[in-house]
């Protein structure tokens, strides 16, 4: 039988990672409040479902955006025919405006630099094809999104070299770490073409501060390598400090703009992963030109361009949406982290994203990745939560897990928290002498639980806003 390609038969698709195994476990036994109350709750998928009613209301009130409504059908033919890889001008303008608003209008985006792609997945692959040849490399700070192993490497033949970041300084990207990674690449005879940062970070949920960003821009200019800023979570920053984009930094420091490229998408900020709206925004004309030609392989459906153009041109809606989305994410994040802290689970202090970086190091039998996998299997099979183990994000320290909180309704969240609480009680009973356990109560009560189960290693033992209405309601 004649072979097919190495790419097709190899495992560069990266789906053998536990990140995806957890999804499979969920898919074979998905939680449903009525039909399957003992099923696995999906906490491994970073989706934003909190603002849906807000968006639905707008869609119902604007039938002209849906193309196949009585109001929109007169645009059907011209839209169905539109396959120009430049994209609809109104789509690009609306997206450029939205990107600016998400950055507080501190910076303006040029619609002519907006290139479409098949989601951020397609955008990343496209950027890799434009910037690097097979065998060349990108530096990527750890921990990083597991999909990068596929998106940046699989069909491109490009290598990834990790920039190791550590919990001891909250996973900050230091100059030393960047230099160490660059040297490592050199030793392995890999030509480094660029550095990819995700800001806000997946999986950390943190943003890069101004000084770190300036340091990064300085680094890439010195090494004359590209900087790719994945900013797909830009509108999910729900709390201070404010998000700072690379697009702002390059206005403040000296920089060769030909090295700067942004990857964006509407999948996280708007919660539209199904519509496949990915964007490459490059300050390099040759890259814009090349990417535009490559976008033929993953154009955004014109039907979707029409919807998005109409929706994002509605300034009132966009302004309200951005505010509402932050508010919902803030509330959910706070409730979730507070509830976890009450049972002794801490997480990295975060202000963005659709997940938290949960610290379960103290639950490991030993400080190894095997122990992390054992714990993970317990969480999936016994606690019935699909959370994502840190090793799948290439975290260099075992015991961290990414847990998504924005992809479920309030009731499911309560069920998830109850399961975690029950699990922690069992765990603590196992740790503590028997007579003390009889006094343990399963009810979630604020003041008592926090004292009994506060852990030494928790990074965020207290609510960032002690006087929140949620706290007041419980005590």
């Amino acid at each position, binding site marked *: 039988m004649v072979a097919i390609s190495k790419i097709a038969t190899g495992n560069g698709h990266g789906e053998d990672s536990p990140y995806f195994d957890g999804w499979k476990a969920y898919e074979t036994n998905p939680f449903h409040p009525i039909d399957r109350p003992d099923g696995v709750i999906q906490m491994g998928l970073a989706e934003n479902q909190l603002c849906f009613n807000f968006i*639905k209301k707008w*869609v119902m009130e604007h039938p002209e955006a849906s193309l196949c409504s009585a109001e929109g059908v007169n645009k059907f033919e011209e839209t169905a025919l539109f396959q120009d890889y430049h994209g609809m001008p109104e789509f690009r303008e609306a997206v450029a405006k939205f990107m600016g608003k998400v950055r507080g209008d501190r910076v303006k985006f040029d619609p002519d630099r907006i290139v479409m792609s098949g989601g951020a997945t397609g955008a990343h692959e496209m950027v890799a*094809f434009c910037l690097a040849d097979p065998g060349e490399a990108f530096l990527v700070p750890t921990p990083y999104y597991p999909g990068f192993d596929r998106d940046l490497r699989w069909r491109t033949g490009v290598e990834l070299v990790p920039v190791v970041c550590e919990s001891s300084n909250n996973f900050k990207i230091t100059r030393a770490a960047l230099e160490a990674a660059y040297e490592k690449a050199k030793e392995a005879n890999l030509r480094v073409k660029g550095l990819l940062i995700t800001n806000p970070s997946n999986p950390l949920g943190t943003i890069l501060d101004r000084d770190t960003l300036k340091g990064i821009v300085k680094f890439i200019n010195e090494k004359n390598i590209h900087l790719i800023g994945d900013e797909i979570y830009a509108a999910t920053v729900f709390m201070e400090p404010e998000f700072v984009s690379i697009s702002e930094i390059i206005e403040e420091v000296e920089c060769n703009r030909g090295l700067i490229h942004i990857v964006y998408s509407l999948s996280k900020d708007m919660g539209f992963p199904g519509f496949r709206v990915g964007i490459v925004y490059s300050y390099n004309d040759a890259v814009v030109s090349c990417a535009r030609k490559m976008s033929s392989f993953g154009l955004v459906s014109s039907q979707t361009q029409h919807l998005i153009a109409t929706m994002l041109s509605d300034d009132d809606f966009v302004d309200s949406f951005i505010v509402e989305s932050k508010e919902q994410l803030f509330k959910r994040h706070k409730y979730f982290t507070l509830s976890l802290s009450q049972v002794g689970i801490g997480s990295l202090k975060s202000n963005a994203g659709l997940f938290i970086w949960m610290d379960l190091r103290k639950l490991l039998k030993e400080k190894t990745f095997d122990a992390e996998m054992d714990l993970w299997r317990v969480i999936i099979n016994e606690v019935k939560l699909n959370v994502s183990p840190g090793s799948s994000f290439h975290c260099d320290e075992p015991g961290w897990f990414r847990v998504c909180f924005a992809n479920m309704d309030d009731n499911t969240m309560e069920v998830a928290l109850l399961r975690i609480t029950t699990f922690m009680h069992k765990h603590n009973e196992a740790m503590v002498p028997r007579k003390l356990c009889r006094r343990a109560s399963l009810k979630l009560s604020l003041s008592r639980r926090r004292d009994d189960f506060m852990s030494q290693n928790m990074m965020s033992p207290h609510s960032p806003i002690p006087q929140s209405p949620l706290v007041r309601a419980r005590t």
Partner: protein
Amino acid sequence: MLSSKASCNSHGQDSSYFLGWQLYENNPFHEVENPTGIIQMGLAENQLSFDLVESWLRKNPDVMELKKGGESVFRELAFFQDYHGLPTFKNELVEYMAKIRGNKVKFDPNNLVLAAGATSANETLIFCLADPGEAILLPTPYYPGFDRDLKWRTGVEIVPVHCWSSNGFRITMFALEEAYERAQKLNLKVKGVLITNPSNPLGTTMTKEELDHLITFAVAKNIHVISDEVFSGTVFDSPGFISILEAAMDRNLENTDVWSRIHIVYSLSKDLGLPGFRVGMIYSNNKTVVGASTKMSSFGLVSSQTQYLLTNVLASKRFTSKYMKENQKRLKKRKEMLVSGLKKSGIECLKSNAGLFCWVDMRHLLSSNTLEAETKLWNQMVCDVGLNISPGSSFHCSEPGWFRVCFANMSRGTLQVAMRRIKDFVERSNFMGRIKMNYQQNMSSLSRKLLSNWVRKLSSPDPNEHER
């Protein structure tokens, strides 16, 4: 600084095929606003049957505003990103594909992989079947986009299988063998042969004989066959369409090795005239190929919004039957209008029964039997006559003088204008006695500049030119 892919020109956009589009865009014809502009006859689009789809949409309120049974499905669609695709959509697609083939072939939705247009489907399939440096055989003339879709990012080579007008450009066993040997001499490992059936640019369906040759060849050489059947729904005349799978079934090859080496590419861009919606697909009986291409489809999924809309359109069987019949009728009529219009000017077309274009024989209008003469004629057609037709050389035709002329992407009125212009041109040329390379006053300076830049580039090609 950038990758070699970004700096080279294997994106294929320097082809006259695309340059013609550019010239059109700088001076597009409009009956009222720009009656002397260039008429676009280089874009194979089907605009003849939109009214049918629009009237269906108006009659089906449930699809409007993305409602199903009164409840908005917007939310579910917005989150649906499963690369397996909407099951209901794939079920409808396989039924539709079977219908086009007269239900002689049955398709399994689990073997169907969605992609962002046939552009993406073809590239993905090549990524799955061949390694960089390996080769695919391609009968000429072939669609210029293949130079980009099959080669650019995959690093795979194309080796042309030369076909000639002397036998109506039919694929012969001899031509296949000759191409294979040429590949061997170049040290290129051939992994497969890609055919377009119905053919772009010929507008013909493959005969049983040709399909048998291909299958025999694929068995003998142990290679894959990719059949790009994007125009399968545009067959408007006899002989009917025979899909590669039907030909293989006729030879009882379902349980043999070659069955898992036959792959089909399809799309809704040509049949249903919906190129903007980016709906492409791969069909394969090879589980490994289905598995790998499904994962790769992450790079170009079909928007769930679009999947939902089209599921509903295709689910209406009465509508699809009516559409197919009416569409074919209109295509046939329009093609006949083009053929007879050209005949009045003494220009013949290859006899065709499918597609959105004709393969037009303008060899007698060449000043000499050379590529240069074809290019000169093309310049005149675009800039003087104001018709963007596509020169055979851009399709890698081995004989100069053939042009692809599209007929389904314009109104009747516009086609009439085009026919009149050709008639005038031919009469003028006959009067002058021979064709001269002559820039007329009405040619814009931009067109002139673009053309001369392009000609200059062609005459001193530098495939390794540095990044711009």
